């Protein structure tokens, strides 16, 4: 049985003299299973690496142990390149850190450091001997994509994917496309008409043969994994089955109604921002005196978040009203003006220049709306000038937040992704805001977190880009789904004969990769290799060690533990 080729790196004399490599080298060479030991000066440099590969190929070993520096130094790259020589199997190459982890941290104790280095190498030799390799799983990728939600985000995602040559199933629970844009009069910050903004997307989608719109349709069921999702759509009593490679959730968010606040529903003339948009869109005459109240039902204990769009949206409407009628009196009552960035800050200023008045109130002293039958005025304590003001108003517009779509909970269950405490889909924080804990399932737009249509469309394009990484392939391997350059550590494996069907692994898996299946009359666990991320959580909760990570199995770990302190390995 072939054995292990051991490379010891001297790091040009920065590992010895603390660690006595020559004494160690002799000892290791005598170990059973070690084919040869070679000492090199700088394994991280191309010249030494070429020589190492030649030695390995000539030596007849099938595994490599490298004793050098830390994986956060250069050694990780070396191991990656060496594993290419082992058929791309990363589990056949083991790195032992004897520099940062040994020579450099125990410089005052060369005897102890050398003993430790010997133990570390012995531990990892034992590990290599028992390490097994998991076979990769490879699936054929379905080239079609499903986008749920035909608002700004969903339309942008669908168009991008279709332009790249893939069929898209655009699933929309409403009668038509457009999402929130259909309800708006204008969009910020360009002040373009919402219909104008929407038209090009609608036309492009209608003209795009690769996009199939499923209107008045919901997702009823979903199974599968990246590359191969089986979806059942329901539209009334009709059902459609889809078979897609990636899923993009762009279900948007809903508007919250401020019942009971600021005499909404009681007085005529008290409306929400969305109602104002509708009126302006329908060409209704705008009254002379408007007062906007921000943060209605937002940034409060029940909904402790800022909904992003309300300040710019109120500013948009306020400034447009002023431009249409310079004599109009428009006031925005706020707690902070949320216009971050260069463009929105400029937008805010131009509203100031157009004559919109801004008054800041404190959260614990909200404005009071008065009137009988219809709204009359709004009283507010202006915190910046320290005066109480009574503002005459013909209409009071309440800026309420977006709230999570009620469908998100069901979709999260169907696709095994997370939702946060507000009901928005959870992302893979911090660098992958459009990805979820399931490979192949992406989120964008207000389904993820409230955004306006511009950012929603950008996120839709971003999600499309992520989806194309899967859709563009003919085949997808489980290893390639890993974020790690070397591919993941394989995936969990189960010995049917020992599995008691307890379901611990099913419960603990962060990716819901384990499931109980009936095999020969009894329930045993099965691992979905495409979902497994090799975290190893399952191995810790299995009562009899049935589920194992082959590359990091219990015997291998046991060998490491036994050899840690220079005790002989038990048979």
């Amino acid at each position, binding site marked *: 049985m072939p054995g292990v080729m051991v490379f010891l790196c001297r790091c040009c004399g920065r590992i010895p003299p603390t660690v006595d490599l020559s004494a160690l080298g002799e000892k290791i060479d005598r170990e059973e299973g070690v084919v040869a030991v070679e000492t090199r000066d700088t394994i991280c440099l191309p010249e030494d690496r070429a020589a190492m590969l030649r030695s390995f190929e000539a030596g007849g070993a099938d595994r490599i142990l490298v004793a050098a520096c830390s994986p956060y130094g250069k050694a990780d790259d070396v191991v990656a390149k060496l594993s290419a020589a082992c058929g791309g199997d990363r589990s056949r190459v083991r790195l032992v*850190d004897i520099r*940062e982890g040994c020579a450099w941290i125990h410089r005052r104790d060369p005897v102890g450091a050398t003993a430790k280095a010997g*133990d570390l190498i012995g531990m990892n030799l034992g590990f290599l001997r028992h390490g097994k390799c998991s076979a990769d799983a490879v699936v054929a990728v379905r080239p079609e994509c499903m986008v749920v939600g035909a608002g700004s985000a969903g339309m942008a995602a669908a168009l991008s994917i279709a332009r790249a040559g893939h069929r898209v199933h655009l699933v929309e629970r409403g009668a038509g496309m457009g999402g929130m844009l259909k309800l708006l009069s204008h969009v910020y910050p360009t002040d373009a008409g919402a219909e104008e903004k929407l038209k090009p997307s609608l036309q492009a989608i209608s003209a795009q043969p690769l996009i199939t719109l499923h209107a008045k349709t919901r997702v009823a069921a979903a199974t599968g994994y990246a590359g191969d999702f089986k979806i059942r759509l329901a539209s009334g009593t009709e059902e459609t089955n889809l078979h897609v490679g990636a899923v993009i959730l762009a279900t948007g968010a809903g508007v919250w109604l401020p019942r009971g606040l600021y005499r909404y529903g009681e007085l005529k003339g008290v409306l929400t921002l969305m109602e104002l948009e509708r009126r302006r869109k329908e060409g209704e005459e705008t009254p002379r005196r408007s007062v906007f109240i921000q943060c209605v039902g937002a940034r409060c204990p029940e909904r402790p978040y800022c909904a992003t769009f309300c300040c710019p949206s109120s500013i948009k409407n306020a400034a447009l009203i002023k431009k249409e009628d310079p004599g109009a009196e428009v006031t925005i009552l706020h707690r902070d003006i949320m216009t971050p960035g260069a463009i929105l800050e400029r937008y805010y200023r131009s509203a100031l220049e157009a004559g919109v008045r801004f008054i800041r109130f404190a959260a614990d002293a909200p404005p009071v709306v008065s009137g009988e039958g219809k709204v009359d005025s709004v009283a507010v304590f202006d915190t910046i000038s320290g005066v109480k003001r009574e503002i005459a108003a013909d209409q009071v517009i309440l800026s309420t937040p977006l709230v999570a779509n009620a469908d998100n909970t069901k979709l999260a269950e169907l696709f095994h992704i997370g939702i946060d405490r507000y009901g928005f889909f959870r992302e893979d924080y911090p660098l992958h805001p459009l990805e979820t804990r399931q490979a192949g399932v992406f989120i964008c737009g207000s389904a993820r977190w409230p955004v306006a249509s511009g950012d929603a469309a950008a996120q839709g394009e971003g999600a499309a880009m992520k989806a194309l990484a899967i859709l563009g392939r003919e085949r997808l391997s489980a290893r390639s789904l890993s974020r790690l350059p070397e591919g993941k550590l394989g995936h969990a494996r189960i010995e049917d004969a020992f599995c008691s069907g307890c379901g611990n692994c099913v419960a603990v898996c962060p990716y819901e990769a384990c499931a109980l299946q009936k095999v020969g009359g009894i329930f045993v666990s099965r691992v979905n290799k495409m979902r497994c991320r090799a*975290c190893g959580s399952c191995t810790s909760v299995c009562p009899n060690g049935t589920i194992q*990570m082959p590359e990091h199995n219990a015997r291998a770990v*046991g060998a490491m533990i036994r050899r840690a302190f220079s005790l002989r390995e038990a048979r």
Partner: protein
Amino acid sequence: MNAPERNDKKPSPRVLVFACRWCALVGADAAGRKKTELPASFRVIPVECASMVEPDSVLRALASGADGVAVMGCHLGGCRFNDANHVAVKRMEALGDLLDTVGIGRRRLLLSFGTAHEGHEFAEILGNFLQELGPLPELTPWRKTLLNLPAFR
């Protein structure tokens, strides 16, 4: 920054460290890069996630020559495997209860989740642990009993 002085009369306690290769190993690595000095009586086993550390492994380590075991993982909320470390924390704390029950004591199990990700933190935490283990009695008689148990392959 150096670890506390070692008592040369008694060898430094042996500690097996299961370190997740993200936060914990970055800290261990930084400690070495900064040439901090620590006693050479600990060994590090890198794992993909602290959640991969079986309670069984901790017991085996204590039965195989370790005086103490450290399990180090990422900050709560910072686990790249979707909060798998939250479960690991609970599991290890339950293991601590078990160790108390069988008379080994939870003081031999050090848990660090996100507190050892910088070099000086790793050195301080491990250095203190080694110091605390010093005065504890040896585990030898109990260890031999466990080694003979058939369940331990």
